[in-house]
């Protein structure tokens, strides 16, 4: 075992693929090329203390960093996907579900909780990218819809923290329909005058972007996150052109008017506390 966790993907590729959460003692940062103590990054919410590079972070760790006292109540944790289409690629969908669930962590790609941010009770749905690329099938759509409906019922703001490759192919048409279902629920939330904040983290693409993730009263992105509708590879193949530098990154979206602000993970709790207080007239 080497002392250094090598950045196998290299600087160039880091544009399309983030380096995994480091396991070694030392980590070479893809942002600034510095060698840093892995523990130092971990203690800093997976943000490089030197250059601010945002590594991916586990959803529960992120929740701890946002919610008062780092506590929450989880809902609908028992909902599980089923392979109703008998979908098979190299493995059957059922097998994929079973092995992913067995690895521990979540039963599907989103965790839904109620917790407080600076004493404002809020419904939060947060994606687990480690679960089948954070893809959205029936369970994800259902859990997010229930979060929105709980917000309606309890008159609370709703936040969705996205990290997803988009709709889950293995549930085909029903995955697509989750886009309509969640967006329809947001129409009700909007009519009720309750805030919806969408936090877009690396990566947020496809059917997730093209539904609730772009529908925030506030759309907040983490720095340098990949955010888009079509994947960069698909676009390149379609137009047969190189993509411009920084294309589909948070800063690019900010420039094009698609997100309200870019907020560092280290500032997220304070920012959310401030805007939620104002939106709920507190």
């Amino acid at each position, binding site marked *: 075992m080497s002392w250094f966790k090598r950045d196998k993907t290299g600087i160039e590729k880091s544009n399309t693929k983030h380096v995994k959460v480091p396991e070694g003692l030392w980590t070479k940062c893809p942002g600034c090329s510095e060698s840093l103590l892995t523990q130092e990054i971990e203690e800093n919410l997976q943000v490089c203390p030197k250059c601010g590079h945002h590594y991916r972070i586990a959803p529960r760790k992120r929740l701890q960093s946002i919610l008062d006292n780092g506590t929450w109540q989880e809902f609908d944790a028992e909902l599980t996907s089923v392979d109703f289409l008998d979908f098979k690629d190299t493995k059957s969908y059922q097998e994929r579900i079973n092995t992913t669930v067995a690895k521990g962590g979540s039963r599907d790609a989103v965790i839904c909780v109620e917790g407080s941010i600076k004493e404002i009770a809020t419904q939060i749905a947060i994606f687990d990218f480690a679960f089948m690329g954070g893809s959205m099938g029936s369970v994800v759509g259902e859990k997010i*819809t229930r979060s929105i409906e709980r917000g309606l019922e309890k008159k609370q703001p709703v936040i969705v923290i996205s990290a997803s490759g988009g709709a889950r192919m293995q549930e085909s048409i029903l995955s697509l329909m989750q886009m309509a279902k969640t967006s*329809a629920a947001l129409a009700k939330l909007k009519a009720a005058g309750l805030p919806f904040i969408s936090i877009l983290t690396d990566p947020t693409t496809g059917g997730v972007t093209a539904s609730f993730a*772009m529908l925030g009263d506030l759309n907040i992105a983490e720095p340098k996150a990949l955010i888009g509708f079509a994947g960069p590879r698909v676009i390149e193949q*379609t137009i047969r052109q190189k993509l411009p530098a920084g294309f589909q990154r948070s800063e690019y979206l900010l420039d094009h*008017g698609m997100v309200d602000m870019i907020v560092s993970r280290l500032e997220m709790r304070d920012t959310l506390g401030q805007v939620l207080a104002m939106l709920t007239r507190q």
Partner: protein
Amino acid sequence: MAATVYMEFEKPIAELEKKIEELRSLGASEMSTEIDALQSCVETKRQEIFNNLSRWQKAQVARHINRPFTLDYIQHLFTDFNELHGDRNFGDDHAIVGGLARFDGQPVMVVGHQKGRDTKEKVFRNFGMPNPEGYRKALRLFQMAEQFNLPIITFVDTPGAYPGIGAEERGQAEAIARNLREMASLTVPIIVCITGEGGSGGALAIAVGNRVLMLEHSVYAVISPEGCAAILWSDGTKGQQAAEALKPAAQDIIELGVIDEIVHEPVGGAHRDHEATTQAMGSAIRRHLAELKEMTPEQLVEDRYQKFRAMTRMAE
């Protein structure tokens, strides 16, 4: 009508019809019984093939170049069509057409994807793949329909929303998402007709209806078979395998409660008879519209909400 364009699996039919043509060109009257026999052979063969289409073959039928497109439905089923252009913001997207028209004399708003038949028109229509301004034009027309209390009828036929640099810069995802949310709250009846390719979010963005009707050999899925194959097997040519896995046929989808009715096509596919196809669709629209007209604006919104709310398969 243009020359017949055969699909690969229609080869036996193509051969028989070629033979009939040859005999006809000889002009010999004693051949007529043989021609009749061959003709009935063609009909039987066609029945047999089209009753047993695989999902991949259905995808080919759904994409057939002579399949009726939105403007064909408008021509056959509507009067007084006045096309309305532009999103009032960026431009006019030719991949989506829409406007005011009369259906059975009643004013309605009609909106649909539009593909092209010859090369020039294909390019003009961007192969039926809208940019954000197309979806924003559609939304403008939907909201106008609500303002003037007109029912909305949409025709869905697209490979998907266009994946381009400009599309991303102008907010393709936002445009689709906004349509999904806003369509959910419209207070007028919405009837959606899936007539060809229901290509993912690019289709859904004009497909949140109280009733969703689907032509017999149309397809509707979260991704195209080729796109799915490229991701799952890193091989875009395995479309056939992917089509079977995605189960995008109308007959698959009705099982899941996503559509309300399958509208039958003439034997050999919609492209063989535009009049019969559009009339079949028209009578289905008429029936559903009559039902929806009995509902109050609040009931229409709630009916649509509950319809999509129920689209879930999971273990609890």
